[in-house]
């Protein structure tokens, strides 16, 4: 968070609003991606690896792959339901 912790009071006024906004957007997207990854990993591990063996089997791997796709799809369905439900 360099733009916040070390503002440069230069003649140009330090980082522009555009730069700060870009940085905020990037950091939010990063945080969101990390959290999403952790959730999907936990859900699909629980769903697909029910009895951990000595290695991931082919069917476990393909279950994980489908599971990730379905989780993304489900997020879209929920997102639409939430947006439709809250016009207020």
């Amino acid at each position, binding site marked *: 968070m360099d733009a916040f912790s070390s503002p440069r009071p230069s003649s140009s006024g330090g980082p522009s*609003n555009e730069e*700060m906004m870009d940085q905020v957007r990037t950091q939010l997207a990063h945080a*969101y991606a990390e959290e999403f990854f952790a959730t999907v990993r936990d*859900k699909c591990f629980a769903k697909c690896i029910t009895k951990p063996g000595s290695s991931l089997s082919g069917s476990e791997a393909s279950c994980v792959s489908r599971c990730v796709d*379905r989780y993304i799809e489900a997020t879209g369905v929920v997102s639409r*339901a939430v947006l439709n439900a*809250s016009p207020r």
Partner: protein
Amino acid sequence: MDTSGLGGGAPSFELQQFLEQEKQKAMVNELVAKLTDSCWEKCMGTPGSKLSSGETACFSNCAQRFLETSQLILQKFERMQQG
């Protein structure tokens, strides 16, 4: 509000507005993530090549009913405070 020459002082109006919008978006994202998480437990069978129509309907109903339940409980609490 004078922001000139303030090293890291009050952010400009434009920036404040932007942050407020991002906050709103983050709250919606968080709600969607939370709902997907808990509805997944109720609705999801074995992951197939796409969501079945039953699963899709379940996710949609689950999300809407959650919001409705939230409203219901909120109203109950309000009544309890008044009573």
